[in-house]
């Protein structure tokens, strides 16, 4: 370990050594570990809020007919479930990981801009309160679906305005957070760590931050146009005035498609850290992994209209977006191949992080394949806006992003808390999540292929059996996450003392500092050989 930690003689600018305590530690935070912790707790709280939304939806869908929810409220729950999970749970969780891990992995003392970092975080509770308050204004929360398509989004009550402004704040938070992460990675690496020797998690976040900076402002533009169409008489999405509602879809999906890679690239990074450790082999094909990540990012910006095959576009356009989308399978295949090749003839053990990582490859690959199927325009026209798409994006978002987040949490939580987690609870959490996840989402493929449309509060009798199974699975999946919460709390409170390296074959600078990582690390940069 090359860092000198909290040594008393070095107080030339000694205020930085203060260990702030009480409420100031969190509200006025400038420490990347504290801010990372806040991000992670916030995102988990949002996961539970969004999860409760989902369980209410599933309760209504347990049987055909309308039981407990008005259809209008059902639509509000659908919309808010999407917005909260995407912008409140998954994205902030990855920023939390970046906050904790990027400085530790590149040997920097903190993020490049510590105060900006705290500003990015504290905009999120503000945005979340705008979203949650919107349930209680006249007309309720926005019910336009998380995509907020015009003209529906132009017609709704004040809840829609609150959602738009919440998106503005979350977008500002993402932009500031990305500038911070990108600057930290480009400028704060320890001497002797060129970009091509950087941990893969940092590479994926570097590229994710670039994507965020490229597309979050476009979302801000799109929702601003919705706001002015709603209140200031503009005609962007109104054909009567010469505009076009389809234009909203183009601008939204120019943001929306890179957004899905924003939510999966850092997950790839986590998996690329976990698998080499538990396979006891270096990552196979490091540089091809970097190029694959960059290719995915670039391709993601030219495929947006594959979300719009049924909207109407020239057949040439359909062909272009279809083939460009299918091309993404190539770099993604490179990644899957490299992970499998890393495990090939490795000396593998299956602690919980590895279980989630292997599980990730398995279920994410299913989601990837269904994505490929929907990229085919003639097929998509059949299954567009059915439960097939719901199944698809939950396979990549829940089994992809969320499982990777779990994998990363189990992998690094001994470094964060200084205690080993309870392996038995971890395994219970994995198997319960894995089984109930598939009970929930696998039957949705059949429902979609049989023609059940998404975002409906009611359905015909022939879909009843699968829907009942899905609802049972959803409650099981929701309850399984309480095991995770219990594991985290127990790990913070106590448990076996974690060693510095924690895992036998873990490589990287984060494993050279003590567990738990001290408040300040790498105050002098380590030398990387």
């Amino acid at each position: 370990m090359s860092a000198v930690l909290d040594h008393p003689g070095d107080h030339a600018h000694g205020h930085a050594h203060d260990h702030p305590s009480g409420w100031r530690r969190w509200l006025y935070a400038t420490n990347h570990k504290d801010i990372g912790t806040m991000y992670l707790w916030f995102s988990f709280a949002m996961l539970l809020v969004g999860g409760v939304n989902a369980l209410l939806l599933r309760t209504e869908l347990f049987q055909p007919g309308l039981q407990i929810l008005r259809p209008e409220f059902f639509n509000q729950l659908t919309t808010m479930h999407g917005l909260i999970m995407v912008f409140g749970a998954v994205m902030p969780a990855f920023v939390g990981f970046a906050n904790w891990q990027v400085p530790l992995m590149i040997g920097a003392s903190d993020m490049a801009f510590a105060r900006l970092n705290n500003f990015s975080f504290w905009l999120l509770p503000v945005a979340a309160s705008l979203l949650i308050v919107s349930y209680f204004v006249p007309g309720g929360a926005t019910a336009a679906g998380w995509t907020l398509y015009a003209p529906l989004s132009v017609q709704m009550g004040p809840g829609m305005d609150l959602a738009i402004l919440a998106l503005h704040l979350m977008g500002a938070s993402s932009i500031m957070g990305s500038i911070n992460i990108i600057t930290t990675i480009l400028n704060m690496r320890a001497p002797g760590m060129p970009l091509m020797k950087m941990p893969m998690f940092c590479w994926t976040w570097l590229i994710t931050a670039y994507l965020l900076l490229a597309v979050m402002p476009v979302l801000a533009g799109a929702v601003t146009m919705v706001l002015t169409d709603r209140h200031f008489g503009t005609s962007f999405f109104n054909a009567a005035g010469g505009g076009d509602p389809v234009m909203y879809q183009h601008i939204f999906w120019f943001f929306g498609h890179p957004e899905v890679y924003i939510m999966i690239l850092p997950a790839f990074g986590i998996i690329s850290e976990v698998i080499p450790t538990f396979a006891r082999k270096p990552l196979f094909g490091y540089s091809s992994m970097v190029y694959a990540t960059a290719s995915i990012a670039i391709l993601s910006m030219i495929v947006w209209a594959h979300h719009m095959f049924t909207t109407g576009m020239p057949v040439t356009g359909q062909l272009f977006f279809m083939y460009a989308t299918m091309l993404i399978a190539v770099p993604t295949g490179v990644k899957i191949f490299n992970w499998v090749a890393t495990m090939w003839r490795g000396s593998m053990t299956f602690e919980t992080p590895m279980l989630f990582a292997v599980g990730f490859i398995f279920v994410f690959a299913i989601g990837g394949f269904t994505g490929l199927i929907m990229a085919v325009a003639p097929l998509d026209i059949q299954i567009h806006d059915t439960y097939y798409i719901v199944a698809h994006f939950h396979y990549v978002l829940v089994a992809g992003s969320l499982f990777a987040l779990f994998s990363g949490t189990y992998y690094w939580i001994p470094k964060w808390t200084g205690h080993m987690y309870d392996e038995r609870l971890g395994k219970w959490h994995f198997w319960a999540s894995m089984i109930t996840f598939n009970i929930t989402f696998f039957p949705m493929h059949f429902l979609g292929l049989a023609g059940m449309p998404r975002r409906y509060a009611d359905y015909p009798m022939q879909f009843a059996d699968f829907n009942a199974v899905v609802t049972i699975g959803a409650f099981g999946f929701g309850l399984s996450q309480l095991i995770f919460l219990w594991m985290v709390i127990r790990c913070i409170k106590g448990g076996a003392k974690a060693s510095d390296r924690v895992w036998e074959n873990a490589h990287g600078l984060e494993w050279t500092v003590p567990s738990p990582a001290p408040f300040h690390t790498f105050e002098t940069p380590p030398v990387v050989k």
Partner: protein
Amino acid sequence: MVSATSSGTPYYFVPHPSKWPMVGAIALAFFGFGLASWVNGAPFGPWLFAIFIAILAYMMIGWFGAVARESESGLYGERVDVSFRWSMSWFIFSEVMFFAAFFGALYYARSIATPWLGDLDHRSLLWPDFQATWPNAGPAGVVEPFQTIGPWPIPTLNTALLLTSGVTLTIAHHALKDNRRAPLAFWMLVTILLGFTFLGFQAYEYVHAYSELNLKLSSGIFGSTFFMLTGFHGFHVTVGAIMLSAVLFRILRGHFTPQRHFAFEAAAWYWHFVDVVWLGLYVVVYWL
């Protein structure tokens, strides 16, 4: 943070706990709730929004002041300087993408939506009289007739003003690098005045459009794209002028050295960025 090098400047800089981000978050809570209630006609909306402006001004003065003090006391080393350069570049990149959304809307409206609304299907089934030309007032007769603004005279004058302000800013930068403080302050002042003259002309143009040309934000897709593009640009000129004013304020207090003056350069980069956006607007909004 503290690994003092031989010069006394720390290798890394990590500020101590600060209230300013929290103040900013509170300000933006007033922004969100204030604007949402204002646009829906709640009487307290404008008041909440005014509180947002007040807290935001307090935050910016306090936060930027803290940064200026830290900079002048030599806490920012070489590495921090590079961080600032990266971050400002990426920030401007994100601003480019924000404008791209509106330029994209203009492109889409002119090149895709308008021909679509005037194609055979729409003409035979919906709007037989619609001429798919630009500008248009939409096919449905819901927009009052209006006239448009050509490139001459005000937009051309405004182009000249912004380009000239870019030159005067560069003269100021050379003065700063040669440590000639009086010309520095003078040319900064000239730059800022040119910026505000631009804004004055634009305000005049808006009044002219509303009162004499009947060109309004509600003038169909033309009015929408015209006012949103030029309006957001004008807002960015305002922000740039505020940045330059803050830099001038610091120049008058004796800040910056010929070697170290990134705040000046950042404001200058931003100013050139709004200049380039204007050139795009001048061509695609006023000319074509």
